């Protein structure tokens, strides 16, 4: 009944404008919070740990032998103790062993090919490709090898065209047996190598750890050599702490990974920018709503005076105006969450398709909390402003 006493304000434009503003601002905020929560969830629940290979920067001092490019035990310990490292392994390499790869393929146009090479190994869990046959038993003369993808690319797009040789597919290469001529302090021998897979992650010629151990023990030197590369896993390789740690210690990693880092930083700055824009829009809209409430009060000041004259207290008059805002904000919240939900459906689908990430389908509790907190804050601000105006009207003059 009290509501009936108020005059229609006829100022629908202000109302619609502030409602749309609030919806846009609130959507930006809610989407930002939801995406932030989802991305964090994905990082936390992603089994695919991210890997980084680090090495020391090579300078002229290394070349003339004044400093070493290998890691000391203390340095490895220190890296291992960093918060961002989940698991760490130094690369194991041949020790005083010379490897010569000799390839000759009969019955094809492939050029005979021989090159000096090296072997390294890392624990199996750091290798990014599935490997059948990734074992080596003593006395077996066939050795499985994992090559970096970049080697295959170098052959197919560099060596092969320039020599007029045919390009080689992965399966073709996997079928080839190489001669591996090994020569060390304690003698020499020949093994057959077979490429079993190609790795993106590890830029090295990998052999099973057992084989490398055998090689070093049987043909190599007994003096210890320190690792010059280290691979470690981390939940999030964009963690800025990693970059600053690497810079601090003059360690290097792949430039690609750094680039990715920069992109992620730009993205997250963009994200904060979105949140800021959302906040600004929301607060401008809140201001418009405040203005709107003042228009209502001004337009109906006579009626408000009558209500107070009749014996209605200022609380019930305030309540009847606030009720209007509860309805408006209710609709605005509902629409915003609907938009958020639609966004989330598409976003989830996109992530699942593009990145193979599966997120919880529901809107996060924190998103609900943020949305409700903003609406309650709006209501509170309106309540304070309206009740102040009504009390002012009610005051004896």
């Amino acid at each position: 009944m009290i509501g009936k006493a108020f005059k229609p304000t006829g100022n629908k434009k202000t109302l619609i404008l502030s409602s749309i503003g609030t919806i846009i601002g609130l959507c930006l905020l809610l989407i930002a919070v939801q995406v932030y929560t989802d991305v964090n969830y994905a990082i936390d629940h992603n089994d695919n740990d991210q890997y980084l290979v680090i090495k020391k920067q090579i300078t002229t001092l290394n070349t003339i032998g004044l400093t070493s490019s290998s890691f000391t035990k203390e340095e490895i310990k220190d890296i291992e103790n960093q918060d961002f490292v989940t698991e760490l392994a130094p690369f194991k390499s041949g020790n005083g062993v010379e490897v010569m790869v000799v390839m000759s393929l009969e019955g094809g146009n492939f050029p005979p090919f021989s090159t000096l090479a090296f072997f390294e190994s890392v624990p199996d869990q750091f290798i990014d490709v599935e490997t059948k046959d990734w074992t080596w038993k003593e006395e077996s003369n066939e050795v499985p090898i994992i090559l970096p993808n970049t080697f295959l690319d170098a052959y197919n797009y560099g060596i092969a065209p320039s020599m007029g040789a045919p390009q080689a597919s992965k399966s073709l290469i996997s079928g080839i047996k190489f001669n591996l001529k090994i020569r060390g302090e304690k003698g020499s021998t020949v093994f057959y190598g077979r490429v079993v897979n190609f790795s993106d992650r590890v830029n090295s010629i990998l052999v099973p750890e057992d084989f490398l151990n055998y090689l070093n023990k049987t043909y190599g030197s007994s003096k210890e050599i320190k690792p010059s590369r280290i691979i470690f896993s981390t939940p999030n390789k964009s963690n800025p702490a990693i970059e600053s740690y690497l810079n601090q210690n003059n360690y290097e990693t792949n430039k690609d990974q750094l680039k990715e880092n920069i992109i992620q930083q730009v993205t997250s700055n963009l994200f904060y920018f979105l949140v800021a824009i959302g906040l600004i829009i929301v607060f401008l809209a809140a201001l418009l709503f405040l203005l709107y409430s003042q228009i209502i009060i001004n337009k109906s000041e006579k009626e408000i005076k009558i209500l107070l004259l009749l014996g209605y207290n200022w609380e019930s008059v305030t309540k009847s105006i606030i009720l209007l805002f509860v309805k408006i904000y209710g609709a605005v919240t509902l629409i915003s969450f609907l938009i958020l939900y639609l966004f989330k459906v598409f976003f989830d689908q996109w992530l699942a398709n593009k990145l193979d990430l599966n997120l919880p389908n529901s809107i996060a509790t924190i998103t609900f909390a943020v949305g409700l907190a903003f609406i309650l804050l709006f209501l509170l601000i309106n309540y304070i402003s309206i009740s102040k105006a009504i009390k002012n009207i009610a005051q004896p003059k």
Partner: protein
Amino acid sequence: MKIFFKNVIPAPLKEEDLNSSEVWDSELKTEGSVPYFLSSNSGKGKSTFLKYLYGLRNDYEGNIYIDEKDIATFSLSDWANIRKEKVAYLPQDLQLVDHLSVWDNLILKNKLTSHYSEKEIRDFLALFNITSQIDKPINQLSIGQQQRVALIRTLLQPFKLLLLDEPFSHLDEENIKIGFDLIDSICKKEDAYYIIATLGYSYGVESNKTLLL
């Protein structure tokens, strides 16, 4: 309900000679049994007197007490309760909601107090011969009709004191008589009395007390 005006001087009358006034700058006590007629030419503070008692204005020096309580200490909710249950007031400018119908204007008050049934309210309207106007917006009624609606609305609550500010200025004699009869009977029923501001007419009401301002 006891009212006590103690050396009250309204701000607008500060410069005026108030020696002859029985109300301002003197001690005035009213107590229910007879009606009081506030009588003076305009500009002597009749409306102001009523507005002080209804908490609409407080621009005075001195003290005003309702039932021995200084009204300066009343909070906004105290005033709301007084207006709802203790003091009824018919302002000179009526204060009806223009865009609402006669009926809705009355219900707006009765909803708050739930003092009368809808049938009783219809009976009041019939008494004043305005039943046919019931659904019309207030602003389509004549001033005289509006005065009668406003009087009915004023009565739709429990009260011990009724404040009337020139309520019959636009009414014919017949309606004035109906009005006074209604006021008398309801005051009797509520065990209340009234203070009425007039320009000096006593409307034939006998046994009243006239207060000169």
